[in-house]
């Protein structure tokens, strides 16, 4: 498949996704109740927003089908495996931070990000991670009085 066709297909799929989302918003809005123009209901703004989203997405869809130009991507080639790993590590951070506490979880997260994702040597990664975890705890919790999760160890 040539590049123009491929980018056209991608752009159309993205536009169709927004059309579907717009329809879902409209459907959800009708379930909330649209009210009347004299007394708009909870779903009023959502319904009209959803409808405008559908119309605009259809315009973008038509635009993408008509265009014969290749879509210029602003982003470079992305490393999706690394991106998925970073996002997964953040999700795990959210799962454990209130159980294990800020310092320990932050240490694990930073060690992983520096050592595994960024490929810094492990000794240095562990050193920087522990210093950053303790340092940020001192700055945010002790100095700025921002409440950070303590976990079972109390820090």
């Amino acid at each position: 498949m040539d590049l123009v066709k491929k980018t056209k297909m991608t752009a159309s799929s993205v536009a169709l996704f927004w059309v579907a989302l717009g329809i879902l918003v409209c459907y959800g809005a009708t379930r909330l109740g649209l009210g009347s123009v004299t007394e708009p209901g909870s779903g009023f703004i959502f319904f009209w927003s959803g409808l405008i989203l559908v119309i605009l997405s259809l315009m973008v869809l038509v635009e993408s089908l008509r265009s014969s130009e290749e879509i210029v991507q602003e982003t470079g080639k992305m490393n999706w495996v690394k991106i998925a790993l970073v996002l997964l590590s953040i999700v795990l951070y959210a799962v454990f931070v209130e159980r294990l506490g800020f310092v320990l979880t932050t240490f694990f997260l930073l060690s992983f990000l520096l050592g595994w994702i960024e490929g810094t040597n492990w000794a240095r990664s562990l050193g920087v991670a522990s210093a950053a975890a303790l340092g940020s705890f001192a700055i945010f919790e002790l100095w700025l009085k921002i409440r950070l999760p303590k976990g079972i160890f109390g820090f």
Partner: protein
Amino acid sequence: MLESLTSLAYGFNIALQPQNLLYCFIGVTMGTLVGVLPGIGPTATIALLLPATFKLNPISAIIMLSGICYGAMYGGSTTSILLNIPGEASSVVTCLDGYQMARKGRAGPALGISAFGSFIAGTFSIVGLVIFAPTLADFALKFGPPEYFALMVMGLSVVAYLARKSMAKALMMAVVGIVLGCVGLDPITATPRFTFGILDLADGIGIAPVVMGLFGIAEVLENLGVLTKAEIFAGKIKGLFPDREDWRRSIGPIARGSLLGFFLGLLPGVGAIVPQFLSYALEKKLSRHPERFGSGEIEGVASPEACNNAAVGGTFIPLLSLGIPSNAMTAILLGALMIYGLTPGPLLIKNSPDLFWGVIASMYIGNIMLLILNLPLIPMWVSVLKIPYSYLSSFIILFCLIGAYSLNNSTSDIYIAVIFSLVGLLMKKFAFEPAPLVLAFVLGPLLETALRRSLILSDGSFLIFLQRPISAAFILFSVVVLVAPLFSKLRLGRGLSEED
């Protein structure tokens, strides 16, 4: 006018208190730091530091947060000139001639003129704030829900018009922003809307995790394994004070940049990024040697740098006098004002004069601090850039997580930040701009309330927006902005994109 000057003197009284001076200093220093560092901007920093300000008095807090806003404009130029990397989105244009000046051994005058230009523009915009904000606030007392609704529609239309890619896509993002902003309890009936039974969504989606995800984490994810070590200008920086010839060439561009930035910044939806492109284009048009632009012309540094600073002052006017943010940065400040129990809007100046005048006076003091501190500290800022990006990116993620979590002490906000970082990444990949989404996200609930109140007032007639002169003018302007591109191939945003 005399009344304003008396009030400003009162503001200096407040801003010069030792505690406020300290927070002003912290704010401008933090602002410069995040301005220097690529990957984390003033918006994410304000969101990050917001929880730290809860225990402060609101005046000190807003003084510090404002300092971050304009401090970042100073810091952004340093990396643009020395590295050809804009530390901040509103310093993109400075790269064009600033870096070329540095390569020709004129990094000193480039940094100097950008600091002096920023200072002059900052001073000008503060004078503008003193004159315009109270006048506009008095005028805005006449605003009812229809005028507010029309004004917000105008802001969103302007954002879409200024989109540098597809205008339809920008409008789509604005609509998505409204939908996301309205998630949570119905402000009138308290019915849960699109919360999917998740208790944490009842209060709505927080601005902090959205900003952290869209601007902070998404930026890091995009650059994973891509950004190599930046090449830092190795030459010795000398002669920070521009000579007589530099001044002669720069004074006009600084004046024009200040005027343009300030007045464009006044318009809701414009922010500080677009005016600097326009100021650069204007200087190029006015120049006798436009072909030299891009090869190290001092005018190409002086004007955009003055412009982005003046625009920041301009964006404070709709925020403080109308309660309407112009961009993501002022949207977070609006959130901060509400958290401190203040009601942003036309009555803010009358009800909290100490806050309003104190903050304005502190902006002037902050600008002086930046001028005095910034130039001698440039070597220190450059050394900050020597920290490997692998470390910086990990720290940015950590700061974003702390910022997302600490506002509500809720891990749900971390999940929201993760979702929005992925959304932000996909938006970049498929050429959707995040700015209209964030602005509409903040304006969404205000827009909805204004619309529903207007319809209740008019007994269901949409004509109310056209029957009242002020709202009719705003609506007319919005229509012109939205329809004009259909008849003209040239659209400002797209033109700017070509100007790059």
